[in-house]
């Protein structure tokens, strides 16, 4: 039974330490909640923060081995570490935001903490996945936890409805995704990325299976990152879910989705670029245009940000299209291909981080400003005169909005700059133009939030309360948004290094 023997057990454990910490942390939190009745429950959040911070510490200090582990189910390295950092940071902020609201509103959800940790675990697995099975399981871990996070606010009808919609459509899309996996498995004879790559390179895989399979997988990913036409759950779910969860979904899930999409595209690019390229081009254009145009007419800030997140998915897809483009070009293009792929990947990673920062900042404030469950508390009009009542919160939200709109010197601009410069470099100037026209449309609705906060007088039903820790955290994000907007270089170079590992 040699198969059972796991080679070099110590190495693998060390490699998996961050995963183990998160998983164990989840269990620990769960058990603590169940057993220690005397503990003030908001102390659970400290435990979660401790877990997440220890992940960072462990990952930073221990020279974790790189390369495939656990029989190639996971591929550890800079790429997975990068995303682990990202997810952990998002987790920390989500914890802070959620705890503040639990504390203030008294609507306590002990299950939130372990589920959050498990969702993060799923994402980490997803980002590190090197086998379709791990992709699937990571995806499902993340999704199932998120269904509950979004839909589990008791006594809150929108939350339940959002959770249910998300679950139903998520299940529906995972069926498609799985069908895709099955066909890829069938085409390549295995689910490991190495096997798939080998099959693709050898050309032995039957094309119809392969295209159908990868196509359906793309549908699955498209669902997760809210790509048109698989986006329709997004506004409803973002709207119904509590803001701290929405923030988490908008940032972490999108990042995880793009992490795996990026890997998947790079994996299949040599053979399938010809098929992906036109499809993704059209979808990217549709995604950002639809997202922006419909966001324009929203009166609810969460829905608005939901549509805006769809639009941003479109920009990100542009980056992927740019990565694909060289594979189709002539020899002249191929000569540049390597550079474009690397820059495109780095641009995507940078964008994801920037996007996470600004969306978290926005949702952090929205979370604080939200009212009692059940009340339609997220109308933009309720932010009237916020700048006078809560200048820090208003400034933070304003910075986030400007950044989302892509105005320098915010990180949103630099992110777009990197993406669009790769798009232009790949010779896709029409796409770049469509992209900038879209960001132009988006300016209008982002500005409207600022208009309401800064230029309208306080309305009767404007929210009055606050939660300082969350606001401070969001404020810190705002600072980071500007800092990374001005000094993006170090980070971007880091992203390049990270990406180089997975660009084959």
């Amino acid at each position, binding site marked *: 039974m040699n198969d059972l023997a796991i080679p070099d057990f110590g190495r693998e454990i060390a490699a998996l330490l961050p995963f183990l910490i998160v998983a164990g942390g989840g269990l620990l939190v769960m058990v603590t909640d169940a057993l220690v009745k005397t503990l003030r429950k908001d102390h659970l959040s400290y435990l979660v923060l401790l877990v997440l911070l220890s992940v960072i510490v462990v990952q930073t200090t221990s020279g974790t081995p790189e390369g495939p582990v656990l029989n190639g189910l996971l591929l550890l390295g800079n790429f997975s570490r990068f995303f682990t950092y990202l997810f952990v940071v998002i987790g920390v902020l989500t914890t802070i935001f959620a705890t503040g609201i639990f504390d203030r509103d008294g609507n306590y959800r002990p299950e939130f903490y372990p589920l959050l940790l498990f969702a993060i675990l799923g994402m980490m697995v997803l980002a590190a996945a090197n086998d379709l099975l791990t992709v699937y399981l990571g995806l499902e871990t993340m999704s199932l936890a998120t269904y509950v996070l979004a839909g589990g606010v008791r006594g809150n009808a929108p939350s339940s409805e959002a959770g249910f919609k998300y679950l139903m459509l998520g299940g529906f899309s995972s069926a498609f995704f799985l069908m895709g996996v099955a066909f890829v498995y069938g085409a390549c004879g295995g*689910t490991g990325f190495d096997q798939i790559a080998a099959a693709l390179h050898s050309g032995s895989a039957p094309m119809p299976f392969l295209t159908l399979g990868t196509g359906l997988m793309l549908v699955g990913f498209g669902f997760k990152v809210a790509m048109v036409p698989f986006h329709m759950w997004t506004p409803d779910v973002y709207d119904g879910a509590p803001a701290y969860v929405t923030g988490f979904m908008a940032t972490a899930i999108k990042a995880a989705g793009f992490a795996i999409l990026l890997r998947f595209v790079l994996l299949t690019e040599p053979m399938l670029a010809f098929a992906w390229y036109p499809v993704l081009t059209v979808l990217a254009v549709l995604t950002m245009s639809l997202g922006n145009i419909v966001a324009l007419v929203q009166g609810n800030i969460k829905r608005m940000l939901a549509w805006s997140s769809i639009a941003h998915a479109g920009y990100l897809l542009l980056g992927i299209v740019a990565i694909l483009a060289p594979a189709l070009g002539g020899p002249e293009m191929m000569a540049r291909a390597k550079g474009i792929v690397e820059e495109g990947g780095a641009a995507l990673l940078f964008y994801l981080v920037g996007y996470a920062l600004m969306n978290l900042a926005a949702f952090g404030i929205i979370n604080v400003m939200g009212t009692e469950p059940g009340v339609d508390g997220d109308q933009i009009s309720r932010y009237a005169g916020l700048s006078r009542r809560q200048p820090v919160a208003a400034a933070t939200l304003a910075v986030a909005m400007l950044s989302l709109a892509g105005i320098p010197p915010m990180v949103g601009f630099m992110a777009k700059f990197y993406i669009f410069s790769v798009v232009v470099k790949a010779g896709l100037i029409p796409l770049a133009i469509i992209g900038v026209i879209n960001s132009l449309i988006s300016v209008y609705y982002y500005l409207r939030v600022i208009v309401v906060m800064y230029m309208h007088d306080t309305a009767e039903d404007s929210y009055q309360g606050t939660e300082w820790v969350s606001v401070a955290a969001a404020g810190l994000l705002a600072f980071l948004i500007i800092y990374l907007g001005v000094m993006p270089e170090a980070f971007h170079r880091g992203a390049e290094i990270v990406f180089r590992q997975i660009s084959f």
Partner: protein
Amino acid sequence: MEITLTHYLVLAGLVFLTGMVGFVVRRNALVMLMCIELMLCAVNIVFAAFSRLHGDAGGHVFVLMNFAVAASEAAIGLAILVEIYRRRRTVNVDDLKTLME
């Protein structure tokens, strides 16, 4: 006539489409959940068929995982459904549209 892989795939495809159509046409949330189960079942058949093709039991592992995931999904789905039913006294998904434009 020899039963080929294609037969299995077509069967799975038809089952999958049945589930898909069912998901779209049925208003009962419970039945919709069942439709998802049916679609997953179709996927499982594909896995099993390819497993057979490659003589590799990896597909079977996948199917087993599917069982667990489907069960988990059903469990959570049903729990939320119960919660919804408690408030609204309905499991008709067409009534679940407080969240819309």
